[in-house]
């Protein structure tokens, strides 16, 4: 192994440092440095390739394969028809509603704590956001069942005031119920993401606008608005991808009553497969990768743009 490293780096040296003849020590140290660079990160890339790259590649590959191992587009075509098209629509709708609602509420909360002159409030909200944004899955579902499920505390309390949540056929296990639960991790995520941008609005700009005779509306319309729009849009995209990918919460809460793409994939994995559609799950997975890829790509672009003025 040492030998190969020497010969590879040695040939490299001939072109780069041909003039420095006779400095054997120098050669050796450069060889070791080169080996150090790639040797140091080699395990990481092998690991990521094996446990992430390979499975991902396999999903994309199988999305375009038929049962007999030939190339086909029929899986992808099938994945945007009927119940699967409906699932994509529902998933997109759920992500859009929960991300925009979460973004607006989260922005309001973040703005309130940004302008409040109470550092304690700020610290509590910031810490709680970090904690709640990572809350999800089965425990979150059960917590909400205990809150506004049929026997939940809030349901019972509202009944005392004569409001019966479940009178009109609404349940927690519907679209709006899911949005309500998703907001529990969407709002905190929004607060975390947008707070630095709001903090970046400098007091001097407000003063400058005011001294030039600008009104509050004009400040928001011409200064704060345009500055906050890219980070706000970026945050909406991040929230969108976050809820689009979520499986656990929806699965635990609805047990499949609402058609969502992750749930469809889940039921295909669990073996509810119709024989000639074995590769359909991969096509759905490919669809999810494409959508989240576009959304996160746009997020990264907007993030980069707002990073320019955020750096103080």
């Amino acid at each position, binding site marked *: 192994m040492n030998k190969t490293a020497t010969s590879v780096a040695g040939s490299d040296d001939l072109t780069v440092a041909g003039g420095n003849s006779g400095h054997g020590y120098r050669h050796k140290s450069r060889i070791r440095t080169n080996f150090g660079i790639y040797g140091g990160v080699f395990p990481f890339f092998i690991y990521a390739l094996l446990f992430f790259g390979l499975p991902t590649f396999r999903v994309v590959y199988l999305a375009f394969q038929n049962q007999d191992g030939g190339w086909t587009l029929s899986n992808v075509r099938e994945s945007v028809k009927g119940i699967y098209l409906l699932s994509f629509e529902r998933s997109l709708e759920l992500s859009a509603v929960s991300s925009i609602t979460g973004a607006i509420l989260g922005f309001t909360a973040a703005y309130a704590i940004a302008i409040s002159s109470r550092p304690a409030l700020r610290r509590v909200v910031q810490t709680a956001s970090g904690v709640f944004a*990572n809350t999800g899955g089965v425990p979150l579902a059960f917590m909400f069942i205990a809150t506004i499920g049929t026997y939940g505390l809030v349901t019972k309390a509202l009944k005392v005031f004569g409001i019966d949540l479940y009178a009109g056929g609404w349940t927690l296990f519907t679209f709006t119920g899911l949005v309500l639960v998703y907001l*529990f991790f969407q709002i905190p995520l929004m607060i975390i993401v947008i707070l630095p941008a709001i903090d970046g609005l400098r007091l001097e700009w407000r003063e400058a606008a005011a001294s030039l005779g600008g009104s*509050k509306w004009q400040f928001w319309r011409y200064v704060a608005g345009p500055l906050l729009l890219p980070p706000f849009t970026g945050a909406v995209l991040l929230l969108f991808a976050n809820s689009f990918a979520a499986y*656990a919460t929806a699965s635990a809460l609805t047990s499949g009553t609402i058609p969502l793409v992750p749930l469809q994939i889940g039921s295909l994995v669990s073996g509810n497969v119709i024989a000639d559609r074995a590769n359909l799950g991969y096509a759905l997975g490919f669809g999810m990768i494409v959508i989240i890829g576009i959304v996160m790509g746009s997020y990264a672009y907007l993030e980069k743009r707002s990073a320019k003025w955020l750096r103080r």
Partner: protein
Amino acid sequence: MATAITAPPKKAPKSGRSMVLVPKIGPGLGFGLFVVGFYFLMPVISAFEFSIRDINDTYSLGVYGRITSAPDFGTVMWLTARLAITTVLITILIMVPTVTFVHLKAKKLRRLVEFVSLLPLVIPPVVLVLGVLASMPTSVKGSPMLLAFEYVMLAMPYTFRALDSGLGAVDVGTLVDAARGLGAPWRMVFFRIIGPNIQSAILGSIFLTVALVLGEYTMASLMLWETFPTWIATIGQSEASLAVALSIFSLGFAWILLLALSAAERRQKGKKPSGGEA
């Protein structure tokens, strides 16, 4: 004085009032903050109330006594603990040297490593599990430890960020050069120099990883292993109040871990200015 500017004198005070220099929380914002706070507190309170409520609407803590005697409690906890430990060990073993090398010697590779680390945010677990089931040999799929190897990937966006900012706060190059110059072998550099200097970053990524393993439902349930979260779901089908009690425990534990994480982060931030002197 304000009239010296073109604005008509009558309007000047009005515009002065509407453009507040130091904005304060008005009644609108205050109400919004209250509603949001209510929304986050209510489920926590309700879950506790639900877990201690009996069928006859009386209250008792009995359900918490039944947790340890619930079916499969021991097996599930043992498997989850092994998964957590394995995930943490692999994460440290892979990520600490990688991020250190990237900071020390291969700054050009930093962007690439960061990109790869963030990719798990683009491929959702439910899609990744499809690929894992389709590409891993049967013998590997027979072991639940495969989950740990995948959890390392799921945690990578967070562990990379934690370690990256931790290493960014200290002057690793100088420290390592000094240690190497005095003849310390790489093993010692990692354990005695880099390790202690990014202690809070390492602790932070351990907390995050453990929280992730304790809460991960998607891959575990689709690969048919009974870990803590999938077990709660199973219990929920027969005994709602026990499942809610377990959920409280699960969330409570994760919240403690994440609180510890933010404490560790704050400590690191406080350390930043003195980083060069160390």
